[in-house]
């Protein structure tokens, strides 16, 4: 029973998403009053009818009392409503099945808003323009846009429920230094350099390339000219890839109800061949196998235990290191390697996304990029990020005809650079003195109007430059053959490793290796918030894949426990507590957040800000809390680079507290060393 709604102040639905159960409850509600046979109102209309009073009341309260609703809960927490106002849009999340708490719902709303930003960039700053993007007048297009975000939300929900890395919102790396290094080299030489030296690249510059095995990061390479990618953006990209090419762990155990995604591909979108249509013959061959196995869901694709005839050009890898052929692991592989074919071929082209970057030392939010997702094998994907060398020049002629253009052109730079902070005001002042009569200042209302107009103009130009010419809408992008080329190169490079990788991604870190040194430790999650990466023993989310804890009730129990503890830690961190020890039943949970310098020396803890319940959540995807925290801390330590770490540990409650604390320290030290492994 879940629902998300985005509406304007006038209760116009800009976006909605419901799960099956909620849609069903709506059908029951509206079905009864309608005559049989008569068509029910569209889901969006039902929702808007039901929620309009709340939305309007919320706006009224804000106007009259300058306060507004943030949360409703019914008896026993049966239903939970979370409301959050972003600009002029009211976001509402509803849960009626006890699976999410307030923090989860608010997080979901923040993530949704962030996904809007990733897709529409600075256009989201302007209420009217983003309304057009989110609710295009063309019905078919609207359905498309909504379905895209609905699918993203569903994927996000699934990942957050199942993958520890999404639960704590940090990137999980595949721990295999040797392989990682080889991949980085391949990405550098055969992808980034290959693209950037190609004459066909159509003005695109490859900036970042990375390899994902399921939702885990295998290797990441950035070109020298690129600014670093924020952890939040990397997570968002993983989310996009997982949405487009869901891996079995997150998709197959879906609710028994018919996947709501499937009907959609048969609606208006021509069903293309599922796997990358333009990939090499080899890829096509394997995808055919996949499709077959997909049609018979009870039989799962089992890869050849060793690379067979398909691995033609893999000599490079064999030279530098043989993939381990660990017998037990390969055996495990047989039950783990079920994969799904992506449902949604429509989105498989390059996509315009907006990511933060720094240009000439200054931070630029939402800079347009083009993302290419190149599937290597089911479960293994390569992502390439490019930026137009000089974006928006083609639109120049249209822009030049714009009345305010001469002025706005320069101003746009300033606006973008200075957005955020007091400098906006000086820009306003500057604008005022230039745009209006120099002798007499206009009334404040006029100025506000003028500013609003400028903002809208800027957003419109932005939209024109980056959205309407986006690669998804026929804008320029890397030619297909270039994409195919790098894709096949990487496939060749990795072909001997692919099975190993797929297994490894399920057994990335095992608890076994810690049990001896840390008796009583049941589970842990270690997060480096500076780099946005985490390490944790694998917890299987699938009913079919067993973890060290087996696949019975114990494994489920531990999983549930870990997830609830993550929530708990977040709630306390929100209220300014960085250390938490919690003995409940047979388990003892501890949480630590601390700062340290580059050398790993622990720095003095400070008082962390206390946030209100309705503040944006502790997380990365929807408003990067840890980035702000680091900045906050750095103010008192301007001299040194400050790192922020978190450790969540689950012990048996028989472990006395002093032992527990000592273990936590020891564990953090050991993990710190592992996390020093180079990624770039």
């Amino acid at each position, binding site marked *: 029973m879940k629902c998300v709604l985005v509406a304007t102040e006038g209760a116009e639905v800009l976006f909605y998403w419901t799960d099956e159960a909620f849609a069903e409850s709506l059908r029951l509600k509206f079905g009864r009053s309608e005559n049989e046979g008569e068509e029910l109102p569209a889901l969006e209309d039902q929702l808007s009818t039901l929620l309009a009073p709340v939305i309007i009341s919320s706006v009224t309260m804000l106007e009259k009392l300058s306060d507004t609703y943030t949360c409703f809960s*019914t*008896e026993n927490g049966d239903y939970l409503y979370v409301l959050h106002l972003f600009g002029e849009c009211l976001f509402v999340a509803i849960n009626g099945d006890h699976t999410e708490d307030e923090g989860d719902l608010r997080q979901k709303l923040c993530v949704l808003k962030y996904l809007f930003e990733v897709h529409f960039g600075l256009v989201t700053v302007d209420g009217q323009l983003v309304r057009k993007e989110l609710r295009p007048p063309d019905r078919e297009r609207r359905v498309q846009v909504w379905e895209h975000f609905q699918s993203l939300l569903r994927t996000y929900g699934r990942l957050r429920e199942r993958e520890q890395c999404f639960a704590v919102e940090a990137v999980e790396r595949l721990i295999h230094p040797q392989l990682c290094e080889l991949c980085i080299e391949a990405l550098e030489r055969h992808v980034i350099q290959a693209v950037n030296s190609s004459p066909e690249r159509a003005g695109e510059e490859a900036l970042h390339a990375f390899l994902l095995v399921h939702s885990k990061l295998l290797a990441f390479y950035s070109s020298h000219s690129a600014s670093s990618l924020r952890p939040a953006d990397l997570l968002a990209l993983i989310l996009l890839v997982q949405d487009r090419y869901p891996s079995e762990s997150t998709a197959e155990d879906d609710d028994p109800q018919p996947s709501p995604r499937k009907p959609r591909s048969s609606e208006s979108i021509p069903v293309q061949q599922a796997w990358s249509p333009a990939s090499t013959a080899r890829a096509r061959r394997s995808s055919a196998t996949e499709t077959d196995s997909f049609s018979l869901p009870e039989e799962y694709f089992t890869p050849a235990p060793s690379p067979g005839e398909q691995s033609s050009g893999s000599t490079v890898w064999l030279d530098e290191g043989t993939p381990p052929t660990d017998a037990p692991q390969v055996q495990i592989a047989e039950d783990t390697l079920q994969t799904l074919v992506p449902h949604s071929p429509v989105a498989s082209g390059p996509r315009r996304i907006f990511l933060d970057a720094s240009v000439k030392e200054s931070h630029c939010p939402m800079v347009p990029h083009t993302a290419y997702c190149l599937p290597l094998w089911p479960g293994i994907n390569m992502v390439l990020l490019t930026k137009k060398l000089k974006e928006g020049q083609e639109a120049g002629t249209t822009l030049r005809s714009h009345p305010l253009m001469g002025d706005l052109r320069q101003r746009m730079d300033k606006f973008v650079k200075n957005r955020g902070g007091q400098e906006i005001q000086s820009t306003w002042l500057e604008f005022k003195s230039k745009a209006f009569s120099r002798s007499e200042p206009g009334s404040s209302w006029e100025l506000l109007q003028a500013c609003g107009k400028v903002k809208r103009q800027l957003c419109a130009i932005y939209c024109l430059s980056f959205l309407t010419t986006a690669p998804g809408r026929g804008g320029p992008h890397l030619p297909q053959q270039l994409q195919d080329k790098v894709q096949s190169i990487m496939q060749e490079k990795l072909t001997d490793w692919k099975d190993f990788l797929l297994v490894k991604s399920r057994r990335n870190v095992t608890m076994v290796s810690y049990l001896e040194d840390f008796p009583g430790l049941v589970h842990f999650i270690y997060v480096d918030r500076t780099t946005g990466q985490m390490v944790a023993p694998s917890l299987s989310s699938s009913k079919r894949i067993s973890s060290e804890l087996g696949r019975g009730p114990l494994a489920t129990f531990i999983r549930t426990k870990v997830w609830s503890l993550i929530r708990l830690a977040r709630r306390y961190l929100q209220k300014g507590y960085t250390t*938490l*020890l919690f003995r409940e039943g047979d388990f003892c949970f501890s949480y630590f957040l601390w700062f340290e310098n580059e050398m790993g020396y622990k720095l003095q803890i400070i008082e962390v800000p206390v946030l209100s319940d309705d503040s944006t959540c502790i997380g990365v995807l929807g408003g990067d809390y840890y980035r702000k925290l680091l900045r906050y801390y750095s103010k008192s330590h301007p001299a040194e680079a400050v790192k922020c770490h978190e450790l969540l540990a689950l012990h048996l409650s028989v472990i006395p507290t002093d032992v527990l604390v000592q273990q936590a320290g020891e564990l953090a030290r050991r993990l710190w060393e592992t996390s020093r492994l180079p990624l770039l």
Partner: protein
Amino acid sequence: MKPRLGPRPSETRQQPGSGLSAAVCGPLWPQPLLEGMPHEFDSFSSSPAPDFAAFPQTLLDQQELLCGQIAGVVRCISDISASAPALVRLRKLKFAVKVDGEFLWVLGCAVELPDISCKQFLDQLIGVFNFYNGPVSLAYKNCSQEDLRAEWDTFIEQILKNTGDLHKIFSSLWNLDRTQVEPLLLLKAALILQTCQRSPHVLAGCILYKGLIVSTQLPPSLTAKVLIHPAASRHQRRPAGGGGPQERGAALPPNVRIMPVFLTEEEATSLREFPREQAASPAAAPARLQQCSAQQPPHPQSTSAPTDNATGHVEPTAWMLAATPESACPDVAWPDGKGENGHLPGCDLENIKPAKLHSPARDEGPGLGSSLVKELHLPWGEEEPDLSAIHIPEAQETETSSGYFALPSTGAPDGGGPCFEEFVRDSGDPAPESRDAPPVVMAISSVLSPSTPEMLSQNGALEQHDDLPGDSSQAPFPREDHLPGRTSRPRSWPCSDLRQSGTALPEGEQGVERSVGAHDSCSAPGGSALPESQDDNGPSADRRDPGSAPASCMGLVPTNLYTHSVNGLVLSLLAEEPLRGDDAAIEEVYHSSLASLNGLEVHLKETLPKDAAASPSRTYNFTHYDRIQNVLTANLPQTATPQDRRFLRAVSLMHSDFAQLPALYEMTVR
């Protein structure tokens, strides 16, 4: 009809920044109900005169808007989710909501208060209202809105004044700090209650001293209702000649009132289940007090006649006033430190009870008069023993070292018995207290604390206490046997006066003696008004009689509340309805308890410390919460420093988690 919200100094008196912002909407829309238009609360715009009991923080039109909007949203949410919202949260306020037939109860609280406390608080308020007025629909039918509003005002006023930050979080009862009381006196109080139970019709009762629980046989939920008196409500406001003298009124002994009240079915059943002769739950406790009795010579049993108390009783009352921190009542000039300046007693009174005493139409018996004063002011006093509790941990430090700290037992109590205590301490300085109830929850929050392991290892010394609670019968006297130092006077008591006036009052007694006169004079006129006050009881009770019959049909059981006030001391007994007509029974109850009550009052007055103020050198905070009895022991001052705010924040969070997770038994945050 506009809600009447004239200037009410008493309402705005609550502490700024305190957890409770005190927006209490009484039942909304009584009007349409009367006009036969129930279920009308879904309208957004035309709100038909919501009845606000008190809404001090918002302006009038804002209140109407708020109520209208909330009612509408409640309706809307109920439609979607098929159940009404229990909590509506805004950015700066939160509202506990309860839909009760055609009525909507809404209680506004500050956002800092945990959700769960907000809901509990509303339940408690509804409970109190129903206890004294019966079902809300009937109450609004039978009584004028004016009266009910006045009654609301009294309830809310009392609650606001008596409820400190911690009490708000825990929704706990206002209890006497038992560490400050000679245990024999507690035993005596329990015995009085048992004696009364032997009288016909009497079910169970409790004894309050200055609004604080001394001893109770009632379950906490019921004790909470008895604690709050509708003292200034219509029961007293009725014009003296109005109802005509009742046969009942003449027969009541002095200082005794009998009010019709309403129990819920469960409460009634649980009270009647007890075999009366042995029902007294505190009865078990006395056995454990023997050690203590050795430490202090027992006080002579109550020999003092009621008249002797005339002078005696004033002292504690006056002292209460002296002890009241200014913050609780900023707009009132306190008699305390200024007793030296020769404040007139009348002045004090006027400041204290602005409207009520001056209205000639409101005659109040001495019992009522004094209870009024007590109810209005003693509750602050309730803070006082708490404050003084800071010294207890010091006294106990030796105990601690000798291993007397108790007890996180393994126990996650199963659903049946929520027998947790929460003990929250804010310091690296270990000063734990011993407790009887076994599963004690230990939590530490400290900014200046040493590293976590160290802190924790100190607590590691906790040992399980052998003294299992078993039943709540021992509960009223949980700690007695472990507190040898109880009788020792605190070394220094910086008075609250110091903070206010800067006048040094080295010993609280000084100020106290001075105000004695003030109190004498105020209670004296009340004495003459005695007969009228009893007359007042009659009409109001009678008037409600027609209502009480249907009341029982609506899940409420009419019962009688017998109250006997002896200065600061109030004996409240719940009795079967026939008590009101049974003069002999009333006499019996009265005479069986009179002498002991007088004695108890005198001793309590003598035993309790005479002043209260936070020691400025508090190095830690602690809070001990007894979930069975719903009482608190803490050393938090009335006005919270930023440091205390942090502590309160931690307590709120932890309390929410303890309330929700039955298996949780220990928690540390930093």
